[in-house]
């Protein structure tokens, strides 16, 4: 019924193409050859005293790193952890060169004997994505690599003998016999190594603290075994450096070997736990998605261990995604560190989940969570769609109001520039005609009556223009416009209070027309003799109040004048309150938000 639509989501859910299959096979073969070579070197070595131990180390530790690494890479192609695991195996095999009887190979083996420790550190820092995300991470790893390599290269360059085996192949890379210099470099490198190890430990502790429960269960085995390994190996290097008793060194070597062997199995444990915790996650999620559950986003974010998870909802009407608030939303593009998956229900898009790109390595989990969430998300989608429609309606209502205001101003200007001027001009011409008709009394009388009509017509035209939109309101604001309104009103109006400063145009316009309409009603329908007007501001709200001493009984539900005011106010998120008991006068109060 529900499914996650992975193909269109820019998220690879497949296990990889045929070409990678060849790469994996090639790497496996190369690993096997390497292991065989290492075992052969140990068996033919003329200076190795503990051949059994070395064969176990080379023949078990390296292959298990390589095999688990290749398995992990095969399952999670975008995750580099598997490749790093394989690299640990390769670096471990390189140490077997120490077994070689050929002097050059022996020296290279000595020089690279600490390399694999650095690769293990690299693996730990990069876990679980296999990538070094931050600058701090990259720097720590680089310091670790440099220190580890310098530590083992320095004695090869400046000491004739390592004093570690008998017989010892000749040192072919010796530059000069300078044991003091070698020791100095070794001390500096050891300090660097220790510092980087401490840095990595701090980093891992911090990461652990920032992880959710589900994440901890997955990374715990890998992190702790790895940390123990780095600690053990660093200690071992220090013991060797400080010339500790051979017993202690051997004991530490054994501890390190056990820890090394445990690492790949810890990784496998992590993988297994990932499956185990997935079952837990789904149980939790389904419980939280019940209708009584809180936020579906919270539930899914917790289930996936990604607090940054975003949900966007499909709007079929516009064919685009919107946020839960109904605002337009964008799906992330490649390279933004975000991935997404589109969720459909009964073949119709419902929503998209946008999450951290590292989660793209968990396609099964994403798919399961999407399926479980589809029904709940469909409900959320309907709500988001409603919110989007409301937002659009509010916007279009505000646009209509703006357009209406612009239109009123235009009509007022047109009247001023057109009809009014023509009539004034006509009035002037008639005045001249009157002058020239001196003596023709009958004609002048007729003309006088025409001019009187014209004067009345002009007065009506002025009132009409002012009623459509008072120029004074635009030019001088509410206070003068309300004063003028009060002075012209056909009843006694006292203006008690009007803000001096300017308010938003739509608020001024609404307040003006509320007063205008109220005064007209007071005089026309309420037979009021006197009225008061008060316009105040209270906490970002303009309050317009008109009271009269008329007969009352006004009802905004009837009468188109008040009805129009209610609509105008609603478009500004305002409200109108009318208190008009029969015989008790009318009190009208409008509240208009004006931030």
């Amino acid at each position, binding site marked *: 019924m529900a499914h996650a639509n992975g193909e269109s989501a820019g998220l690879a859910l497949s296990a990889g193409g045929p070409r990678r299959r060849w790469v994996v096979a090639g790497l496996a073969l190369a690993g096997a050859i390497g292991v065989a070579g290492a075992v052969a070197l140990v068996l033919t070595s003329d200076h190795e005293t503990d051949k059994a131990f070395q064969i176990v180390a080379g023949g078990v530790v390296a292959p298990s790193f390589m095999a688990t690494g290749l398995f992990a890479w095969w399952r999670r192609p975008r995750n580099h952890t598997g490749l790093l695991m394989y690299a640990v195996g390769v670096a471990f095999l390189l140490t077997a060169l120490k077994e070689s009887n050929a002097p050059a190979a022996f020296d290279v083996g000595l020089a690279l004997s600490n390399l694999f420790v650095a690769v293990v550190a690299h693996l730990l820092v990069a876990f679980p994505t296999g990538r070094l995300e931050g600058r701090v991470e990259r720097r720590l790893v680089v310091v670790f690599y440099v220190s580890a390599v310098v530590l083992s290269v320095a004695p090869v360059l400046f000491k004739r003998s390592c004093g570690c085996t008998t017989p010892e192949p000749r040192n072919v890379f010796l530059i000069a016999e300078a044991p003091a210099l070698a020791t100095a470099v070794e001390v500096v490198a050891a300090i660097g190594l220790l510092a980087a190890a401490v840095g990595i430990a701090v980093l891992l502790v911090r990461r652990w603290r920032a992880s959710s429960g589900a994440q901890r269960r997955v990374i715990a085995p890998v992190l702790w075994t790895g940390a123990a390994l780095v600690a053990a190996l660093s200690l071992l290097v220090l013991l060797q450096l400080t010339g500790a008793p051979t017993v202690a060194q051997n004991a530490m070597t054994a501890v390190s070997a056990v820890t090394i062997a445990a690492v790949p199995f810890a990784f496998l444990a992590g993988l297994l736990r990932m499956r185990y915790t997935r079952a837990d996650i789904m149980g939790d999620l389904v419980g939280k998605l019940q209708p009584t559950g809180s936020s579906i986003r919270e539930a899914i974010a917790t289930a996936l261990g990604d607090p940054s998870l975003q949900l966007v909802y499909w709007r079929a009407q516009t064919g685009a995604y919107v946020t839960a608030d109904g605002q337009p939303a964008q799906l992330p593009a490649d390279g933004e560190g975000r991935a997404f998956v589109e969720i459909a229900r009964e073949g119709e898009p419902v929503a998209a989940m946008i999450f951290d790109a590292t989660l793209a390595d968990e396609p099964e989990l994403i798919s399961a969570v999407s399926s479980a969430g589809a029904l709940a998300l469909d409900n959320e989608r309907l709500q988001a769609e409603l919110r989007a429609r409301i937002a659009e309606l509010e916007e279009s209502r505000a646009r209509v109001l703006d357009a209406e205001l612009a239109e009123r101003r235009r009509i007022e*200007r047109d009247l*001023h*520039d057109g009809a*009014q*001027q*023509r*009539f*004034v*001009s006509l*009035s*002037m*011409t*008639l*005045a*001249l005609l*009157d*002058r020239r008709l001196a003596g023709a009394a009958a004609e002048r009388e007729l003309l006088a009556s025409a*001019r009187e009509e014209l*004067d009345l017509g*002009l007065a009506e035209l*002025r009132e009409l*223009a*002012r009623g459509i939109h008072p*120029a*004074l309101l*635009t*030019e*001088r604001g509410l206070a*003068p416009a309300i*004063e*003028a309104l*009060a*002075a*012209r009103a056909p009843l*006694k*109006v*006292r*203006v*008690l209070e009007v803000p001096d400063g300017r308010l938003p145009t739509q608020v001024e316009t609404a307040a003006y027309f509320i007063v205008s309409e109220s005064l007209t009603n007071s005089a026309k329908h309420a037979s009021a003799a*006197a009225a008061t007007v008060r316009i105040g501001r209270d906490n970002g709200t303009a309050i317009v109040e008109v009271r009269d001493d008329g007969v009352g009984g006004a009802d905004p539900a009837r009468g188109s004048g008040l009805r129009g005011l209610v609509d105008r106010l609603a478009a500004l998120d305002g409200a109108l309150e009318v208190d008009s008991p029969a015989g008790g006068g009318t009190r009208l109060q409008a509240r208009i938000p004006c931030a």
Partner: protein
Amino acid sequence: MRVVIGEDSLLLREGLARLLEETGHEVVARAGDAEELLRKVGAHKPDLAIVDVRMPPSFTDEGIRAALTIRDRSPQVAVLVLSEHVESTYALELFADGTDGLGYLLKQRVSDLDQFADAVSRVAGGGSALDPEVVSHLLGRHRRGDPLDSLTPREREVLGLMAEGRSNYAIAERLVITERAVEKHVTSIFSKLDLPPTADAHRRVLAVLKYLEAPAGAG
């Protein structure tokens, strides 16, 4: 009388000019916007400038500002501001610093040739002319415990005519009473409104307007 016209509408500019010329005035220059008007007034030094309120570029109150500039720069030039519709706010802005040689009338008043001639001669003579509609709006404002309410109807009439800028003689003629009776009314009005008595007809217009301008509720 030598007149400069500032009016952006060609129709009204020509109509005004024809009307002025027919009634014996000389139109020495015509301007379509405030800037051109100020330049031509400066160049021609006319007796009177007739100015439209709404002119380019913003079509709001250019005329008011131009009128004040003319009075400031060339005090010998009288200014008559005309408007399609009058507002007391603009009248009070125009008369804020004095009423001498200033007038503010509805455009259509021009067609009443006698009244217009009267207003022109008053303004040119250093007096003032305020449109009756503005005066009635100013008198129509209501205040709590308004002293205007204590005036008799005849006194209100006299106050209104005073505010329009008319002399005692003109008021007496208009109301068909003696000048002596007008003087008595004026004294009574000034005493009721608690204004300092003044014999100067020009100064008293300003006093009356300042009184009427006082914000609602303050009286």
